[in-house]
């Protein structure tokens, strides 16, 4: 009984965690962050980046004490793999049987070293692409958030029919097909690995898994085989999704074990328990393993499984991306008796605009892991993933559908890494993320000879004044004059400019945000 309890406890924790994180990504109201924000704050890399030392140290201490519980109940990508593996066992006629495999040590080390080096050298895209929480985040942003939007729309429509205002119509998501491509690639790749071999990804690729396994390799408590009771039937090894139980020798490789507790619950003889290990069962530490490994490396010809799968997955992703892009361009909207509105297009900006609180290009590149949570949280349809190579998938701002409202700092509230971080709204309104630039030829005072002043009227910083186009003639059409020192780059002017598709006034980003 006791042996089953541990497994059930793990499953319950994992389900709760998964639902919480999914809710966070699907939420359109900004309420979930108050209750569930911590679930992403405690993620491994985000906790380091955000300087949540307590969370980071706790993760390491817990891992040292109990092994990689983190991988089982905290990491959403780990839980995702368990779900896929579970589905695999349900759908296949013959239940998948895992088997013990040797550690792909060299691959783990290379990736982990690459990851740490990238992090230290600020090679941002590599970090973001390898980090498990962010991989899951991109999948959730592109695949789950739209579902959340759909549900919210349905609720809003039905509460509207009832004359009720409980549910708001959600803001549209700024969808990025580049992000979808990256997410689908990792989804298909990781799902296939999980479907076939359980936690293959966690124990061959995941750099967080490798780092944690150094702490877990001789954890205080771990699954321990009682050699007196064990009959070497091998059932535990077949159930081990981490492929880390060497049933012949009765050894559990605790560096790869993710504490799923399945082996304990499955053993008929009660031979496996979660307890302190004796010296005899100790997993050799990483240094020993490296020495050992490179000793026999010459003989080992095992090629990594990944290449073939990834190629196939890439092709699938590619065709999907093309397909959805085509449906989008075919869709047309009709508006009835109202004048048609020419949709705004994003201007060519020399410097991209990063959200207030992201401090500088350098800061966001160093810290952001491009999980996409801020993009799902933005209620003003401003944030979207960057599609340029130097800042791939990090959040950037543009103002075709809305502008960065003065009362909102939701992106900063949800950001788990501290890449976007604002103390309060006052700090936000004092942060100059860019400055407005006038394109006089687009201004309707030039095009149509009428005064408009909508930019000046809506500028929250009072940075725009209207001046006559003809010097000294107060009756001539007026044109905006921008005080770029005052401009905070919120984009109200660009969004509300009547000129379409290109606004007569647009924002150029600042590489370093000025705060005053």
């Amino acid at each position, binding site marked *: 009984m006791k042996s089953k309890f541990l497994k059930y406890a793990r499953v319950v924790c994992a389900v709760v965690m998964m639902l919480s994180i999914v809710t966070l990504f699907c939420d359109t109201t900004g309420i979930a962050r108050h209750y569930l924000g911590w679930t992403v704050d405690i993620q491994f890399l985000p906790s380091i980046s955000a300087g949540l030392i307590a969370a980071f140290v706790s993760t390491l201490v817990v891992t040292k004490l109990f092994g990689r519980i983190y991988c089982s109940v905290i990491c959403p990508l780990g839980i995702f793999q368990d779900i896929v593996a579970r589905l695999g066992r349900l759908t296949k006629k013959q239940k998948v049987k895992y088997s013990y495999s040797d550690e792909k040590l060299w691959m783990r080390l290379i990736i982990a070293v690459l990851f740490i080096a990238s992090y230290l050298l600020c090679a941002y895209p590599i970090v973001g692409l390898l980090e498990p929480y962010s991989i899951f985040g991109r999948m959730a942003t592109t695949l789950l958030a739209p579902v959340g939007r759909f549900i919210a729309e349905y609720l809003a429509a039905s509460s509207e029919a009832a004359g009720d205002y*409980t549910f708001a119509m959600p803001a549209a998501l700024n969808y990025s097909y580049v992000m979808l491509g990256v997410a689908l690639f990792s989804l298909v790749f990781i799902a296939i690995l999980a479907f076939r071999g359980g936690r293959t990804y966690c124990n061959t690729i995941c750099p967080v898994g490798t780092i944690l396994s150094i702490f877990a390799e001789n954890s205080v408590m771990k699954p321990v085989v009682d050699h007196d009771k064990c009959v070497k039937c091998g059932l535990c090894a077949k159930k081990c999704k981490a492929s880390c139980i060497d049933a012949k020798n009765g050894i559990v490789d605790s560096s790869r074990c993710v504490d799923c507790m399945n082996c304990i619950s499955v053993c008929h003889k009660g031979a496996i328990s979660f307890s302190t290990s004796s010296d005899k069962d100790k997993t050799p530490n990483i240094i020993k393993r490296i020495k050992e490994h490179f000793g026999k490396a010459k003989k080992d010809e095992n090629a990594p499984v990944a290449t073939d799968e990834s190629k196939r997955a890439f092709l699938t992703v590619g065709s999907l991306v093309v397909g959805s892009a085509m449906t989008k361009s075919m869709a047309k909207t009709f508006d009835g008796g*109202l004048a048609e509105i020419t949709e705004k297009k994003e201007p060519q900006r020399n410097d991209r605009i990063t959200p207030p609180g992201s401090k500088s290009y350098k800061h966001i590149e160093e810290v952001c892991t491009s999980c996409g949570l801020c993009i799902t949280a933005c209620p003003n349809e401003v944030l979207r993933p960057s599609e340029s190579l130097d800042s791939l998938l990090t959040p950037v701002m543009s103002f075709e559908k809305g502008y960065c409202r003065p*009362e909102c700092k939701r992106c900063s509230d949800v950001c788990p890494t501290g890449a976007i971080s604002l103390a309060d709204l006052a700090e936000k309104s004092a942060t100059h993320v860019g400055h407005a630039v006038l394109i006089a030829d687009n201004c309707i005072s030039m095009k149509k000879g009428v005064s408009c002043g909508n930019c000046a009227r809506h500028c929250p910083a009072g940075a725009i004044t209207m001046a006559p186009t003809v010097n000294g003639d107060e009756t001539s059409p007026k044109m905006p004059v921008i005080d770029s020192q005052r401009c905070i780059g919120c984009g109200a002017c660009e969004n509300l400019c009547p000129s379409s598709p290109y606004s007569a006034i647009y924002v150029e980003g600042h590489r370093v945000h000025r705060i005053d």
Partner: protein
Amino acid sequence: MDRRDFLKRLSAATATMGLAACTSDEKTKEIIGTESKKPNGEMTYRTVPTSGDKVSLLGYGCMRLPTVQHGSAREQKDIEIDQEELNAHVDYAIAHGINYFDTSPVYCQGRSEHHMGIALKRIPRDKYFIATKLSNFAQEFWSREASIKMYHNSFKELQVDTIDYMLLHSIGGTNGEYNSTQTFEKRYIENGILDFLLEERAKGKIRHLGFSYHGDIAIFDRALAMHGKCKWDFVQIQMNYVDWLHAKEVNPANTNAEYLYAELEKRNIPAIIMEPLLGGRLASTLSFIAAKLKARRPEDSIAKWALRYLGSFPNVLTVLSGMTYMENVKENIDTYSPVEPCTEEELALLEEVAQAMLRYPSVPCTGCQYCMPCPYGINIPGIFQHYNKCINEGNVSISSQDENYAEARRAFLMGYDRAVPKLRQADHCIGCGMCKSHCPQNIDIPKEMQRIDKYVESLKQSMD
């Protein structure tokens, strides 16, 4: 929390609907008979100091006489006045104590005096007082002869030998290139008409002489300065609980009734009140304000509050109400039979109401769509409709201290996004003014758009 709220409201709504269905029958059974509003007592009368005339506190205004098409002859300019219905009004009014009828040669396209003459001819002359005006606005009437001709015509149309109350009509206005002072002098001084009327009063053809005033306060002051010579028997002013302290906010050319009333009271000149309901704006109000008033006096209409307010001032001689429909006549008579003056607390409440109404006036948009399409894609009637709906449902708040502020804010903003897509909302109005000339209600659309936009902005920024 939110979902619970939603469900709670849903079940509450179902329950009240059920309840309403059950109770409505019982109610009609029990309260049969009180429906037709019978006055509780005698009409209140006020006395004119100079003559001792006892004038009913409610005066019958003859600017909005009923037409055969069941409208008001003020708006329905080409429709025949319904003499039969008018006679019925007059009969009911006389039977219930109204004795003051206020007309003018210009009302109802010049038809008012004629029809009132017919209606009143059937009534004994000592039962009513007739008031009419020297309405020589147009420059063609500025000559002495034309004005006197207009004056004599009133006797003919009204079929009377004496006019009980004669007014210089609406002093303080301007005319073309003439400012208010020049206009006043041209109409009444230079042509000697004022002296003529004083003589007529001395002869007894006119029993009381006074003036009605709109516009430039200098002319009001000037006319009162002439009190020594003219001995005004009464003065007619615009007064109601909004104009008392907020006249300038309604119309920058106006002056607070508080000042006008005080000036008259100082000189012991009785005040006759026009626009007691501010052109109908005080007959219905924002539902959240109405709820406050209803909570105080559940059976009283919003118009009744406005009339009781005026009845609370002792120097008010009579309150003129243009009553197009018999139910208005009945209700107003009921209000003043007798008048129940407002308490201090009620006066304070009405001041609160006035402030609220000025802060959130609804837009008189009828949704005719003449302004559309807006070249910038704005859904003008959609925005006004949403704004008005929110005002009427009480979802436009006075201040963030209001009890229902959070809810109202939510309903306004969420409903706004639902009713009008973001790109068609008021913040996209550039004020080009293309729509303005198309609006049959003369709404200053760009100004209203910016007002609504400001309100939306204030709501948005007050969040979280």
